Every structure is written in C-alpha cells, then in structure tokens.
C-alpha cells in the first residue's frame, strides 16, 4: 500500500544518510523519488556528495564512489528490516584500502547490533584480516570444490598461492 511504501522510504532514507556518512567518513546523501508523486509508481534515485565535493547524482561519481553509495543503500535496507543471514559476494572489489577499512568498521558495528550472521566473500587481504574466521575453497582437483578451514597466516599465503 502507498502508506507502507512511504514509511519504508522514510525509514530507509534515514538509515541511508547515516550509513553513507560512515562509509565515506563524512559527506551527505539522500534518497529521492523521481518520475511520479505516487510512491507506488515513482523511481528511486540516490543523491550523493562525498566529503568536500558538490552534491551530484550517481552518474558523475567514480567507480569506487558509486559502489560505496550503492552498498550504503543495501545496508540501509538491511538495517531497516534485519535478516538472520547476510551474504556479501566481493562487494569490496572496487574499493581502496581506506574505504575497505570503513566498510569493515561498519560491518563490525552492524554485526554487534543485530543478531545476524555474515558470510563475506573477498579477495582483499585487509577484509580477510577483519573476519572472525575464514573458510577457504580450493580446487586441488580441477573442477572439484573442497572446503578447508584457514587461519589468517594461511589466508595470506592462500592469496599468494591462489
């Protein structure tokens, strides 16, 4: 219904602004409805202003800035309606180390506040070092996946061996 959608929009928008500031270490962002006044018809647009830059639509942001802004939306929806499991498949791929640190800080914080289990697939050594535990998947036999449990030193080597 229209009222529920409007409520969801307001709640997610609030979280989006909070999460954006945490991921970018400042700046401003907001969600807006476009193309129609009816929340059941309208489109969803993200306005983002990284710290020290002018507010713009997503188009003129960099590859990493866009990915971080879209991640802020995903997390805002998640925080509005937390689910028992959250899986992130190489969401940190386009990010530089400073953004990866803030990304990990936020996941840490979220995992303390909600009763959710996180599965995080990554190639970033920095993200690996922030996990509570690591699973490695190998294909010693070509085409056949095996699962091994790894500690961080092995994961470091793992990256090298890959």
């Amino acid at each position: 219904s229209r009222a529920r959608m409007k409520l969801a929009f307001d709640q997610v928008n609030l979280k989006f602004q909070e999460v954006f500031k945490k991921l970018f270490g400042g700046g401003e962002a907001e969600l807006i409805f476009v193309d129609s006044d009816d929340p059941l018809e309208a489109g969803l647009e993200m306005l983002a202003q990284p710290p020290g830059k002018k507010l713009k639509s997503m188009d003129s942001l960099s590859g990493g800035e866009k990915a971080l802004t879209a991640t802020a939306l995903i997390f805002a929806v998640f925080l509005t309606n937390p689910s028992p499991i959250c899986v992130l498949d190489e969401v940190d791929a386009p990010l530089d180390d400073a953004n990866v640190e803030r990304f990990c800080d936020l996941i840490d914080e979220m995992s303390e506040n909600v009763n959710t289990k996180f599965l995080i697939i990554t190639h970033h050594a920095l993200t690996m070092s922030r996990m509570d535990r690591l699973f490695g998947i190998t294909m010693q036999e070509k085409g056949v996946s095996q699962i091994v449990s790894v500690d961080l030193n092995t994961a470091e080597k793992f990256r090298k061996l890959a």
Partner: protein
Amino acid sequence: MDFKKLRISNFKSFVDPVEISIGEGLTGVVGPNGCGKSNLVEALRWAMGETSYKSMRTNSMDDVIFAGTENRPERNFAEVSLVLDNRERNAPKEYNNEETIEVTRRVERESGSAYRINGKDIRARDVQMLFADVSTGARSPSLVRQGQIDELISQKPEQRRRILEEAA
C-alpha cells in the same frame, strides 16, 4: 531462526559432499577465481526456494547438478540441506515444536525439484513462506550476489524502487 549448517552434495562444483557450519559474527570465504565461492552462495539461495534459473547463472534448473570434469562423470541429482536452530521458537506453527529444522531441496535430472522439512515432503511455497516469515529468502536484499552492486547502479530508478518493497 538461526542458520546453523549447510550440507551440499553434487551441487555445481561441489561433487564431494561438504558441510559448512555458519558461526556467529563474520565468516570470510576466500579462494582463487573459479574455485566455487559464488556456487556456495547459490547453494544457500537454492535451498531457500530460488525458482529463477537465470539468477543461478544457468540455462535450466538441471544445470545446478554436477556436470562432470575430465576425471569425474556427471551426476544425476543434486541436494542441499540447510539446518536451522529453532530454540527461539519463531518458526511457523506446524514446525515450532522442533528444536532444529532441516530444509532439504533435491533435484533429479529431468524430473524437477522436491523439498522436505525434517524428512516430510512439502511444497516450494511452504519453504518460501518459512523464510519470508523471518525476513529472508532466496531474493532477500541481504544476499548480495556478485555483480549485484553494479546492477543496482545501472538500473533505472523505477527498477531500483523494488528494493524498498523488501523493507516495507
């Protein structure tokens, strides 16, 4: 409901049966390109009742069954079980007496999928409802597939609105 374990056999590249326990907090999954990390996530979504073979990167639902390698023959079935802890007693009433709930999906070549909860045959819809009741499911926005962030960026605004419907 607490996601405890995932048991996979013959699903995509997981031809040897594996069992993963999902611990509290943050679990990292690492490994070289093509080793099976995204396949693992698909096994989870498949067990939760995913019906679109496109979102499983396949051309038909049978393609999730191990297709064989140079040294191993193809298999004729695939099966994934998701073990949930129901100590908090928040499952739908027909299963709420159970301490653990085991959701199993099995597909046999050319004869479709079948679902079971704790050994009893059930419909796909029942599985989907079980997970929807605890704000999750195969299409949950918190199961972020590889490349989905890029999709979200390049989507048109009215497609992007759909993510809000999950939060509503």
